[in-house]
């Protein structure tokens, strides 16, 4: 298969125009000893063969659509309305470049502007950028931004319940700086305090109290907030958040083995010049017609080079479009309703599993979408057993090694995830299967 339209005649015509005999002559600047090496990649296939091969690979994976699914841990199975992929499949959107030429990019620009507005509504924040690679990268960039905003302060302080892989990403991003990551509460040496709502283990946090404590220490308050949960839980913006980050995957984006996701990033007007990433603004042309344009570009790498606020040069444009379509399709009531449904189902599941003999859930604090189930046996073994029946009961937390900044997870802890996709009957089946686990009943 080739997408090359040049016929032999075209090639000859082009070579003739150039006064050349063979295309190889165009590569004479390349050192001869290295020119035209052996390349051990098989010849191309027909489209039919390609699809067969890809189908074979795809079939060797477990699709969540063919199982009873309670596995989350940062990537979630939510319902994706048909309209989302219908819009994303329009070539005018997905084959467009970054909208640097606003006159011929108003479609992408207006869609991103509306995306920014919707995320701003969910988070209660003034400024939302046009997105980052994923939630983890957004959080790491937020930490770097806090260091820029608070010169002289070198600590990045993490609340308990930050996703272990996010912490790993932050460690990589901060490898160079003199910054120190620690767990606890902010003090006068802290550039920022970062909390997640809900936390990695599904705990709903008291943002107001955490924000006040953080600001009393003079640190920036950073909240990593789930955008769907934010339609039901208190907005970070109403609790004094200086920066809000999030993973937008729950908003109409397939799990796709963990990527592409959608890094959300919001801040206040006051801090806009310290913000990384591109942002869309609305302005006018000479005729007074409203139009959108990429703005505040003087912060960015293509202008500011080594003094830029980040090296980021792309965004997750198409994923931001997916989130916008998702939010608009469900609308005001549908998004709030889904967010509430997830809460109710999580509570139902937590209570149901807590009542099982040998299992327990700490119900002393509220949880959203996920909760830790203490199993009577290693969680890995429980999950393994249930998977044989096509039930994925959750994530065994023992997979995460103990980190100096993260929680120390126990072998018998299973992180159970419940979304609007799980019916009551499915939750009951999960409970039954857990109860029937051979080490499960006393």
């Amino acid at each position: 298969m080739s997408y090359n339209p040049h016929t032999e005649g075209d090639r000859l015509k082009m070579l003739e125009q150039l006064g050349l005999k063979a295309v190889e002559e165009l590569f004479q600047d390349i050192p001869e000893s290295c020119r035209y090496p052996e390349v051990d990649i098989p010849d191309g296939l027909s489209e039919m063969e390609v699809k067969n091969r890809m189908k074979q690979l795809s079939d060797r994976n477990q699709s969540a659509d063919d199982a009873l699914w309670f596995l989350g841990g940062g990537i979630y199975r939510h319902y994706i309305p048909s309209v989302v992929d219908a819009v994303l499949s329009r070539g005018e959107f997905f084959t467009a470049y970054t909208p640097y030429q606003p006159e011929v990019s108003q479609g992408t620009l207006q869609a991103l502007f509306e995306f920014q507005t919707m995320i701003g509504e969910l988070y209660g924040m003034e400024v939302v950028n046009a997105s980052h690679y994923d939630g983890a990268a957004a959080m790491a960039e937020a930490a770097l931004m806090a260091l820029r905003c608070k010169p002289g302060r070198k600590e990045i302080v993490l609340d308990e319940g930050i996703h272990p892989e996010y912490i790993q990403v932050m460690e990589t991003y901060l490898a160079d700086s003199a910054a120190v990551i620690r767990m606890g509460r902010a003090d006068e040496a802290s550039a920022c305090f970062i909390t997640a709502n809900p936390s990695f283990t599904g705990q709903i946090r008291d943002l107001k109290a955490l924000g006040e404590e953080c600001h009393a220490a003079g640190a920036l308050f950073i909240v990593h907030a789930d955008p769907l949960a934010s339609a039901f839980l208190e907005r970070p913006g109403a609790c004094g958040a200086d920066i809000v980050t999030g993973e937008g995957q729950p908003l109409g984006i397939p799990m796709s083995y963990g990527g592409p996701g959608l890094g959300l990033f919001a801040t206040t007007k006051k801090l806009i010049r310290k913000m990384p990433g591109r942002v869309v603004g609305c302005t006018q042309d000479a005729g007074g017609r409203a139009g959108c344009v990429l703005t505040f570009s003087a912060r960015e790498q293509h202008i500011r080079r080594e003094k830029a606020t980040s090296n980021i040069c792309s965004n997750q444009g198409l994923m931001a479009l997916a989130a916008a379509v998702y939010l608009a399709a469900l609308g005001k009531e549908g998004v709030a309703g889904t967010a509430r449904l997830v809460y109710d189902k999580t509570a139902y599941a937590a209570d149901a599993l807590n009542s099982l003999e040998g299992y327990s859930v700490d119900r002393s604090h509220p949880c959203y979408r996920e909760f830790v189930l203490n199993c009577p046996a290693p969680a890995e073994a429980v999950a393994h057993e249930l998977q044989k029946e096509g039930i994925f009961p959750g994530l065994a937390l023992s997979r995460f090694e103990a980190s100096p900044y993260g929680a120390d997870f126990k072998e018998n802890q299973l992180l159970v995830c419940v979304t609007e996709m799980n019916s009551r009957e499915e939750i009951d089946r999960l409970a039954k299967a857990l109860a029937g686990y051979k080490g499960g009943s006393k």
Partner: protein
Amino acid sequence: MNQNGISSLWELSSSGRRGVVIPRSDVPAAELDDKYIRKDAADLPEVSELDLIRHYTRLSTLNYSIDTRFYPLGSCTMKYNPRVNEQTARMAGFAASHPYLPESMAQGNLELMHELQKDLAELAGFKAVSLQPAAGAHGELAGVLMIKKYHESRGDTGRTRFLIPDSAHGTNPASVAMAGFEAVEVSSDDRGNIDLARLKELCDESIAGIMITNPNTLGLFEEQIIDVISTVHACGGLVYGDGANFNAIMGVVKPGDLGFDVMHYNLHKTFSTPHGGGGPGAGPVAAADSLKDYLPGPLVGRSDNGSFTFVQPAKSIGRLKAFNGNFGVLVRAYTYILSLGGNGLKAASESAVLAANYLLSRVKDVLPSWYDRICMHEFVSSGQSLGEGVHTMDLAKRLIDYGFHPPTVYFPLIVPEALMVEPTETESIEILDAFAETLRVIVKESQDQPELLHDAPHRETVSRLDEVMAVKKPVLRDIGRI
């Protein structure tokens, strides 16, 4: 509402109107302390499904895209995005697979990643590849951090400076700054190459490495690349390859053979995955023996029993992204490699270079290339030959009137009034001819009727926008404002 009748989603909204309806709850409502609950609902749109589809369909028509027009953006490789890639990425085993699946239940994904790592490494002559980075700049950050860790692990801690040619993308200096290095600019010589004499002066024990885009952003292959690399190696520095322009050299030369230590690929350029209006991309990073143990992890390896498994390189710089890279983009790129094969990839590069030289030869008498050499997959001209008082930006905007997307303009920075054209291999000779003819017409207009260029574009929904107002009176989210 703007001029051609595209309202904002909020202007289309009516209180109580529903689009997609959610299922009724089948569980009891649960209690929650008031302090955790938001007080007022987010003011999201309330539109019908038909209005929603019309809204986005209309918006889409305001975009130029590869599907609708020639898109000669230099350095961006706007080639055709094959439809089969879109279909394979949506196969349920890929799209509905979860990153925390047990490895035994994700063998298809792992095999795909393993094969893609292998093919990318083979194509560019490297030992190992990490698929983690989500974009080119992310790959750059990875590579620079790898070089940093390499020096540190040898106790070589005095290397604080990184060399960047003056023709480089802005991401290069920004990436080295993020990794804590001082960016030191290297000038170009009068043939558009890195100035070797200047490089030799700069190379000392304070140099951690150099970032080289080859072919460079002038569309030229570095004629002294072997000497450049050996000069940097001789002072103890390592060499980073920015693979932004890899589309010129697939199957023609392997950067690993030239002595590069680490390089990133832009799957959204060279390997045909869509740009998506700004992303998502993917920027896998490859390493030679010197750096393969430092790659960001995890990578996919193969066990003795033939199964595929995640492995962490011995001295890895760590993780750059949660989960497994932009996997959906990787599926598309692998589909493309299977479709073209080794032979097709080489043919693609040859055609891309032939097309660029052909196009240049059709316009060089009116828009001479800045360096008079054979170009690779793109060429850089200057708008200085336009009529009095007419700038490259005017030419770019006038191209819109003729139905073409403008080329990259004002980059690279070292060419005044730069105009950077990359046709790619997927455009027919008829399109190249039509574009060349249009450029010629516009150059003539710039001399005879310059006002046509100054006011361009004339037919779009909006004309040139007031970017000063956009910053001074920022409107970054404002319901119903558009």
